[in-house]
C-alpha cells in the first residue's frame, strides 16, 4: 500500500500533465462507451427485429430447406407441422409455437400481376408475439390508412395484408379485391381471391416490395398444404436460452426436423454484427494506441524526471520489481481517474443528447428514421473501463521496466 500511496502523490505532483493524461483517457472512455453503446443498441434492435419479424427464438424446420430452393411450396416442409406445433406448445420452456407456410406466387389485379413472397400465419397467435400489429398500425401512422387492420382470426376469412411497396405497385389499398396464384404441393396451379385488409411496413424496402401475409387457412387452401407447415417459429419464455434450448427442441421435433437459434437464421443481423465488429474493432485499436502512447509518454517523462529519486528508493531497499509495481500503480490511478471522468462525461452527454429528441435519418436499407435515444448500458461502460485499464497497465510496462533497470550508482549520480 505504501507503493500506492507513493504513486498517488507522484501523480498529484505533476498536476497539469496528469490532468492532460486523464483528459485523454476520459475522451477514450467516452468514445468507447458511445461507440459500444451504439453498436450494442443496434444489435439489440436488429435482434428484436429478426425475432419479432417472424423468426421467433428458435426455428424448427426441415434441414433440407436450408440447403436450397424449393421448386414447390412445402417441398421441404414439416409434414405434420400442426401436430408438432401442438407438441412444442406443451413444452415448459416454450411460450408459443407459431407454424408458418412460406409460398411464392403471383398477385393479380385485373391485368396487373406482381410476384410475391407470402407467409401464412396464425393471425391470433402471430399478433400476440410478433411485430405484425405494429407493422400494420404503428400508432396513428398506419401505412394503409385508418381502416388498415391485421388479419382476422376467422378461418373462413380470405384476407391479405400487403407490404406497402407491393400494394403500391398494384395500386391496391385497403378494400381492394385481389387474386393470389400459386402452385400447390403437387405442382398444380391454384388461385384464391382475397381482400386487402391492411398494409404492412416491414422496415426494409426490399421486403415491403415483395411480402404479403395471409392466414394459415388461406395459405393452406392455396397450396393444398393439409397439416404440413414450412417452419415453426418457437417463442421461448426465456429468450436468452435460445442456443441452449435448440438441441432439446430438435429432439422433441423428431428426426426430420432441425432446430436453429434465431441468430443462425438472421443473416442480416450477423452481417451487420461482423461489419460493426470490424469497424469498431479497428476504431478501438486506434484508440488503444493513442491512449497507450499518451500514457506511456506521461509515465516515461515522470520516470526520466525522477531518476535520482528512483535511485534513492532502490538504495533504501526497494526491489526492481517494486519500482515496476510503483509505475503500475501510477498508471492504474491515471486509468481510474480517466474512466471516472469519462463515465461522468458520457452520462452527461447521454442526458444532453437524449433531451434534444434528435430525429435521425433512416439507416441504409431501412425504410424509416428514428429518434436518437442512447440507452444506458452498464455492460458497455464496464467493458470500456476494463479495456482502458488494460491498455493503461500495458503502457506503464515500458516506463516501469526502465525504472526497474536503472543502475543505482548511475541513478544517484544523475542530476
Amino acid at each position, binding site marked *: 500500500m*505504501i507503493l500506492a500511496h*507513493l504513486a498517488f*502523490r507522484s501523480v498529484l505532483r505533476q498536476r497539469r500533465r496528469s490532468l492532460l493524461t486523464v483528459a485523454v483517457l476520459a475522451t477514450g472512455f467516452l468514445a468507447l462507451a458511445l461507440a459500444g453503446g451504439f453498436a450494442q443498441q443496434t444489435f439489440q434492435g436488429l435482434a428484436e427485429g429478426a425475432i419479432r419479424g417472424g423468426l421467433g427464438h428458435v426455428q424448427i424446420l426441415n434441414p433440407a430447406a436450408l440447403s436450397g430452393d424449393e421448386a414447390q411450396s412445402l417441398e421441404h416442409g414439416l409434414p405434420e407441422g400442426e401436430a408438432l406445433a401442438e407438441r412444442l406448445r406443451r413444452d415448459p420452456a416454450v411460450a408459443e409455437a407459431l407454424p408458418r407456410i412460406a409460398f411464392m406466387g403471383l398477385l393479380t389485379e385485373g391485368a396487373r400481376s406482381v410476384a410475391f413472397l407470402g407467409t401464412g400465419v396464425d393471425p391470433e397467435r402471430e399478433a400476440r408475439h410478433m411485430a405484425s400489429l405494429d407493422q400494420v398500425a404503428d400508432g396513428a401512422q398506419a401505412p394503409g390508412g385508418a381502416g388498415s387492420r391485421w388479419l382476422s382470426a376467422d378461418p373462413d376469412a380470405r384476407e391479405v395484408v400487403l407490404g406497402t411497396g407491393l400494394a403500391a405497385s398494384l395500386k391496391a389499398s385497403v378494400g381492394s379485391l385481389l387474386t393470389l396464384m400459386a402452385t400447390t404441393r403437387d405442382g398444380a396451379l391454384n388461385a384464391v381471391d382475397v381482400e386487402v385488409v391492411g398494409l404492412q411496413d416491414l422496415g426494409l424496402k426490399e421486403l415491403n416490395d415483395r411480402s404479403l401475409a395471409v392466414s394459415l387457412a388461406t395459405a393452406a387452401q392455396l397450396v393444398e398444404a393439409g397439416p404440413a407447415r414450412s417452419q415453426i417459429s418457437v417463442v421461448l419464455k426465456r429468450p436468452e436460452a435460445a442456443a441452449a434450448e435448440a438441441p432439446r427442441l430438435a429432439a422433441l421435433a423428431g428426426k426430420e426436423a432441425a432446430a436453429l437459434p434465431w441468430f443462425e437464421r438472421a443473416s442480416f443481423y450477423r452481417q451487420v454484427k461482423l461489419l460493426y465488429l470490424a469497424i469498431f474493432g479497428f476504431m478501438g485499436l486506434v484508440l488503444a494506441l493513442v491512449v497507450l502512447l499518451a500514457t506511456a509518454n506521461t509515465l516515461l517523462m515522470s520516470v526520466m524526471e525522477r531518476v535520482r*529519486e528512483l535511485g*534513492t*528508493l532502490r538504495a*533504501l531497499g*526497494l526491489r526492481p520489481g517494486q519500482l515496476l509495481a510503483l509505475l503500475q500503480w501510477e498508471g492504474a490511478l491515471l486509468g481510474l481517474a480517466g474512466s471516472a471522468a469519462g463515465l461522468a462525461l458520457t452520462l452527461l452527454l447521454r442526458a444532453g443528447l437524449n433531451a434534444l429528441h434528435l430525429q435521425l435519418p433512416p439507416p441504409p436499407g431501412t425504410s424509416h428514421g428514428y429518434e436518437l435515444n442512447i440507452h444506458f448500458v452498464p455492460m458497455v461502460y464496464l467493458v470500456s473501463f476494463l479495456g482502458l485499464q488494460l491498455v493503461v497497465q500495458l503502457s506503464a510496462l515500458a516506463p516501469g521496466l526502465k525504472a526497474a533497470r536503472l543502475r543505482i550508482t548511475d541513478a*544517484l549520480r544523475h542530476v
Partner: protein
Amino acid sequence: MLELRNITRTYELGGERAGVFGVSLAVAAGTVAALAGPSGSGKTTLLQVAGLLDVPDEGEVLLEGRLISNLPERERCALRLERLGFVFQSFNLVPVLDALENVMLPLQLAGRPEARERAEHLLARVGLADRRHHRPGQLSGGQQQRVAIARALANDPKVVLADEPTAALDHAHGEPLLDLMARLARETGAAFLIASHDPMVLDRADEVHRLRDGRLEAAP
C-alpha cells in the same frame, strides 16, 4: 561490524583506470570512521560498494562477519532496507512525502507496524518533531539532512554510510549535524562511515582513512 577486504572497483576513463584499488578497512560498531581524500579519489565508489549499491570487481564486503558482497540482488535489497542506512550529499528525500512520511518509508517497506510511532520518535531525536508535516521543499538544507539521518536510522541499521553529508551545508549547519551523527553512532551502536574532506568530519571521527587515487594512504 563493517569490513572491506581488498576492494577493487575500477572505471575505464579514456584509457586511464580510475576507481578504487585493493582497499581494506573496518569500522567498529558505535564508532564514526571518516573516509577522507580529494575529489576523484574514490570515496563515493568505495561507499557504493560497501553499501551494496555496486558490485566490486574484486574483494569482499563483510557485515557482522558475514560475506554480503556476493549475494543475489533480492537479498542485497533486503540488507539495504534492514541493515544499512544511507545519507547523501544532496539529502535525496522523496519530495512528495513530508518529513514524517520520509522517515516512515523504510519502516513501511519493511512492514513494521509501529512505523508512525518510531518515525515520530526518530524525528524527535534529530530535533525535528515540530517539522514533521513539512515537505522537503519547506525545510532548510540542515533540516533536510536531519530527516535523511532519521530515515537512515529507521530500521536500526548496523551500518550507516554517509557520502559528504555536510558538503551542501555551511559550517553553522554542518557542525551540529556531525555532532548529531557522532552521538547517534554511540547511542544506536551503528557503525558510521562518512566520506568527506571536511576537516570538521575528520576532527570528530574515531578513525580516519585517507584515499588518494583510489588507494588507502598508510596511517601517519
